[in-house]
């Protein structure tokens, strides 16, 4: 495999596919709320793929590491163990980061200070992404809903939260209550944190003006006549 980014590309793709799988799974049992749980889960789990893709485009191993670490943390979110599948992209991202770092010649590597700054930014990105996911899923509303089953489909009607025994309205098949409904507050905060993470990823991975990245990931100054700009 000559391309040092191929494994990381596979990691990004796997992360998105698994996010779609999880989102679909969460949409099987619908619940009323500000936003469908499946959509929130998809966005939350697709974010590491976006950060990884940015790291790939700009040849920044730190961003791939951040994507891998976020994916690793996300793998342990569901108590049922269903999110364990995200350990695959986590491994791929980690390997991709190492592969990308090793493929760069030692003489062309960035300064130590730059590396520390990008490492710190990567840690901050992980914190922001994990915080966003947590706020979307933990800052929730409580409520109940009645399920009316028709001949073709089921209709949901929102009800105020009932702490005691739930009263089933006439005509409804069942009433379900939850204290973990997706809330505008949680999603709003999550959107802010997700945006912050992407912004930080973008800013921390920018290269100096006048420098280029060649096709095999080598960092060249602009004076080098053989340089090609693919990053």
């Amino acid at each position, binding site marked *: *495999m000559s391309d040092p980014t191929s*494994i990381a590309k596979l990691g990004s793709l796997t992360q998105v596919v*698994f996010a779609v*799988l*999880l989102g679909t*799974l969460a949409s*099987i049992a619908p619940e009323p709320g500000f936003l469908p749980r499946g959509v929130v889960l998809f966005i939350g789990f697709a974010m590491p793929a976006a950060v990884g893709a940015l790291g790939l485009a700009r040849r920044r191993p730190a961003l791939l590491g951040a994507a891998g670490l976020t994916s*690793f943390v996300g793998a342990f979110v569901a*108590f*049922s*163990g*269903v999110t*364990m*599948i995200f*350990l*695959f992209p*986590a*491994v*791929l991202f*980690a*390997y991709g980061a*190492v*592969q990308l770092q090793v493929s760069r010649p030692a003489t062309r590597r960035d300064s130590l200070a730059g590396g520390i700054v990008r490492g710190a930014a990567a840690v901050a990105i992980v914190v922001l992404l994990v915080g966003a996911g947590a706020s979307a899923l933990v800052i929730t509303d409580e409520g109940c809903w009645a399920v009316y089953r028709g001949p073709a489909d089921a209709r949901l009607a929102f009800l105020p939260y009932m702490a005691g025994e739930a009263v089933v309205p006439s005509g409804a098949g069942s009433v379900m209550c939850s204290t973990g409904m997706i809330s505008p507050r949680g999603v709003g905060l999550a959107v802010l944190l997700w945006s912050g993470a992407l912004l930080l990823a973008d800013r921390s991975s920018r290269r100096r003006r006048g420098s280029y990245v060649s096709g095999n990931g080598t960092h060249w100054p602009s004076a080098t006549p053989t340089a090609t700009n693919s990053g």
Partner: protein
Amino acid sequence: MLVMSSVISRASRTSVGAPQGRREGTFTGLLVAASIVAVVSAYVVVSDTPRPFESMVVLGPATVITGTLVGRWFGPRRRRGSMVRTTLAMALFATAVGDLFVGFGLALTGMGDAGNGPVFAVLYSVGIAFMLWPLGLIFYGLIALPITFVASVIWWQLMGVLLARQRR
């Protein structure tokens, strides 16, 4: 499944009578994995599995990755892969095997559902231990293997006991 993948991969090579590449091995492994996923999915849907879709989501990728890697390994090799790539393959393989344990745990007992017992605890402990050590192997070397194994077994046994007490 592992035996089936390897046997079919070898059998197809013998029947063709010419040396096959790793691509053919991969394809064979994938084919076998896909059939197994189909059979397992059918079983999960038909039987009274507590968490059918969750178990399918976990088992599907795990079976495909295991099948692919086994198919590749048992196919004839034109050249040896590098140490780093072998490590990655081993890491993915261990993660996939771990996911198989967790997936079967979900299919047979269902996390958080009634009927969790020793089978559940063992499947989850072994699964988590398998899944954790590859990342440990990459970052910390072999030291992480026994530590993560012991820690995860203890953790999941404790969780099992706590869950059982909570239900009583």
